[in-house]
């Protein structure tokens, strides 16, 4: 009975291919927090009553609902999960400077990586190529942050790993759609992606590259 109550205490409203929502689901799984996954189909124009009620300001997903109260914003959700379920290994490091660096680079992913990726899929010709060049530049900057450590969190999978790894599910799409050889362009990052892929949470949450590419073609109406 108690386990059942705990299971419905946390709900994530999300869509299976939403990279931002994957962050929330990864964080909960890493923390071993059971949750209910309520799907919101982003292919449907109108947002559901649930989303409009729980996130009236943005009408966006992911939304974490904990004991009836919504938390919105993917990185916000990850920090919240880290702070509430604080007994399990922390996603954010203890040192203030390392925390600041993790937040800075997660913000960089939001400001730069997602935007370049969207432009890569929606533009044509020269603009498309320019967007990919930009995107690869951003990923190489992130490789420089990673250096030779196993994870962005150091020895442990952490906040920045959670923030970035969902985007790796689009790498297959970059290859198919843009003829990019990701192994040649970002070998350090690819090694990190494979290492993350050994984790149960990542294997369970990230869709296959093929599925991600297929649905994004649908969204962006490409090819």
């Amino acid at each position, binding site marked *: 009975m108690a386990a059942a109550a705990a299971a419905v205490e946390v709900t994530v409203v999300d869509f299976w291919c939403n990279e931002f929502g994957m962050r929330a689901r990864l964080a909960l799984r890493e923390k071993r927090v059971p949750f209910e996954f309520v799907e919101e189909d982003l292919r449907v124009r109108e947002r559901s009553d649930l989303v409009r009620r729980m996130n009236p300001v943005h009408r966006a997903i992911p939304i974490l609902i904990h004991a009836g109260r919504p*938390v*919105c*914003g993917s990185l916000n959700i990850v*920090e919240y999960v880290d702070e509430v379920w604080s007994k399990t290994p922390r996603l954010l490091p203890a040192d203030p400077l390392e*925390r*600041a660096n993790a937040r*800075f680079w997660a913000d960089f992913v939001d400001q730069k990586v997602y935007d370049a990726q969207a432009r890569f899929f929606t533009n044509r010709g020269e603009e498309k190529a320019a967007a990919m060049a930009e995107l690869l530049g951003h990923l190489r900057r992130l490789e420089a942050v990673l250096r030779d450590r196993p994870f962005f969190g150091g020895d442990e999978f952490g906040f920045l790993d959670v923030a970035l790894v969902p985007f790796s599910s689009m790498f297959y799409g970059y290859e198919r759609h843009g003829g990019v050889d990701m192994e040649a362009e970002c070998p350090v990052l690819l090694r990190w992606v494979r290492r993350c892929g050994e984790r149960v949470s990542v294997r369970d949450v990230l869709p296959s590259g093929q599925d991600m590419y297929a649905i994004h073609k649908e969204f962006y109406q490409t090819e």
Partner: protein
Amino acid sequence: MSSSPPVKLIGHFASPFVHRAAAALRLKGVPYEFIQEDLENKSELMLANNPIHKKVPVLLHGDRAVCESLVIVEYVDEAFDGPPLLPADPYDRAMARFWAHFMDTKCRTPLVLSFLTEGEQQEGFLKETKENLALLEAQLDGKRFFGGDSVGYLDIALSGMSRWMAVFEEMTGVSLLADDDFAALRRWAKEYTSNEAVMQCLPGIEQIKGHFSATAKKDKVKAVATAMQQQQ
């Protein structure tokens, strides 16, 4: 008393983002040296410490560099002793971060876009700005500050509204936060700008006006003002 590495803040007096960082330091009671940056002629020091965005503020703490205003505010809260800036409760912290982000993406962005557009487009952005400011105002909910009884993270994040909005109004002769509409925000702005620690790092209205008048921004601001008068 342990000695701490020196703290320097690279910034510009007229920037509301720099003010966030300075306010956090003052409220936390951290002594620092302010380094004024010439934004038309960026320094090696700034560019070396913020190669990604090449913007102010940049916080230097010994040999560490921290960039992005809200990241700096959280760093200051965590790295130094002093009154806490973020709330203690995780849900309240999530709310504070949410509304801070909302300010930047849903209030500042449409306002800036309104400077750069005309006619119906401009009216649309101004309407959006006002609607979103109303949502922010509702978060005050009768409290003295967004943080409760004392100035906190969200007050610092929203501090642009407390002074820079007044600058815009004075320069154009038009009110964005008109008397009837935003009484609670105006009351909050008075409270925030009267805070002792805040006053030490808050530029004066005339100072900020002087800076913006000196740049091309004055014309765009006038255009927005005209549109606003038509709306009222």
